[in-house]
């Protein structure tokens, strides 16, 4: 795969506790060398990211309740609304992992539904099931709740140490066929080979904070 072709399948990000506006600006200027699918930034930096990416096809990506998923549905919706207001194209939403681990799928579903309804078609909502911490049974229930809640895009894990395995993509394809319109892989993808393997298995996009490394061995 050519470098630019692979770059179109990559989402890169600059999300950290001590990120500065200056660092965001520099990151985006450099990232513009490639036609990345999207760049994810913290909410305060959506506006400058949108501005800096003008004239490119790279989308602006926001995050909500990220990556811990400890925030309430109301707070998540406030963040999604903010992202819409700042003209972000997509938003990665962490789910209620404590409800999942408690077997409370009614709460999980309610959370997905309310976020999806609040977003409408104004922004693409991508749910993060965080399979790194889930059993197979939990994974299947979570994916079902996401679909039932009206969301058809998933980012399998958040990264930050919560990583995705090839089996995760295989499981989605086996259990849900093509019901998900978009499958993003995040967490632990460091090399061109890994990225290509995930794409071959049916992933649509790969998230990486080190795109140079992932693009290194593309033609």
């Amino acid at each position, binding site marked *: 795969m050519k470098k630019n072709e692979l770059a179109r399948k990559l989402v890169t990000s600059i999300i950290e*506790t*001590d990120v500065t506006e200056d660092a965001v600006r520099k990151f985006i200027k450099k990232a513009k060398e490639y036609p990345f699918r999207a760049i994810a930034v913290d909410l305060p930096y959506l506006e400058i990211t949108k501005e800096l990416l003008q004239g490119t096809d790279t989308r602006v990506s926001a995050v909500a309740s990220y990556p*811990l998923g*400890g925030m*309430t549905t109301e707070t998540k919706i406030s963040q999604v609304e903010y992202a819409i207001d700042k003209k972000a194209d997509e938003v990665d939403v962490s789910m209620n992992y*404590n409800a999942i681990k408690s077997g409370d799928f009614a709460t999980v579903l309610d959370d997905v539904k309310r976020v999806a309804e609040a977003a409408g078609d104004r922004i693409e909502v991508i749910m993060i099931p965080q399979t790194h911490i889930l059993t197979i049974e939990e994974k299947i229930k979570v994916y079902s709740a996401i679909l039932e809640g009206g969301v058809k895009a998933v980012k399998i894990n958040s990264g930050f140490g919560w990583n995705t395995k090839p089996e995760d993509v295989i499981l989605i394809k086996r259990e849900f066929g093509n019901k998900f319109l978009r499958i993003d892989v995040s967490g632990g993808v460091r090399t061109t080979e890994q990225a290509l393997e995930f794409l071959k298995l049916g992933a649509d996009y790969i998230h990486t904070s080190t795109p140079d490394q992932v693009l290194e061995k593309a033609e």
Partner: protein
Amino acid sequence: MMKITKQQFAGTIDHTLLKINTTYGDIKRVCLEAEKYHFASVAINPINILLAAKMLKETGVKVCAALAFYLGVYPPELKEFEVRDAVKKGAEELDMLMNVGALKEGRYDIIRKEIEGLVRAAEGRITKVILETCLLTDEEIVKACEIAKECGADFVKTSTGFKKPGATLHNVRLMRETVGKDMGVKAAGGIHTTEEALAMIEAGANRLGVSAGVAIVEGFK
């Protein structure tokens, strides 16, 4: 060695459970432990406030919410929204992580705005501003403490517990020196033993964020 009773020691503890795989059963357990040992509060993620508030009703143990966790990079108005939401659901203490990057960039207007929003939305409830000291220089720690004090927060707090190292004796001393004796200092992150906990109090902390609260108090002689 300072004079402190076991009861007073227990009263410094925010019994903390913020793990991503926490279950409702875990929340119930820490609430029962907090009641039994008379801890100051149970510190939890906002998704668990309703359950903890129900469990802790009339126990004297407060519900403490961890806000803007754990990255802290949100616009001030959204941070304030989260504080209001937490208060509405029953949180009585509000621990909010500051925007560390804004502090580092000298954007004190942003830091001021978010802490003012926290204090305003808390409506008199206890507020704690988390610095994430492991990412800061001494000068930045001092500046953050000064702003938090000026804006009327009740505590400055070292860490979220998600970044290493958490609280250090040096940083706790520096924070206590900076805010004086009338403001609270909470040491959190990496405190696992009775000895470590007592050393933090000796260094100037009057509140401790720990997940091993039961063992720490049991170890008190």
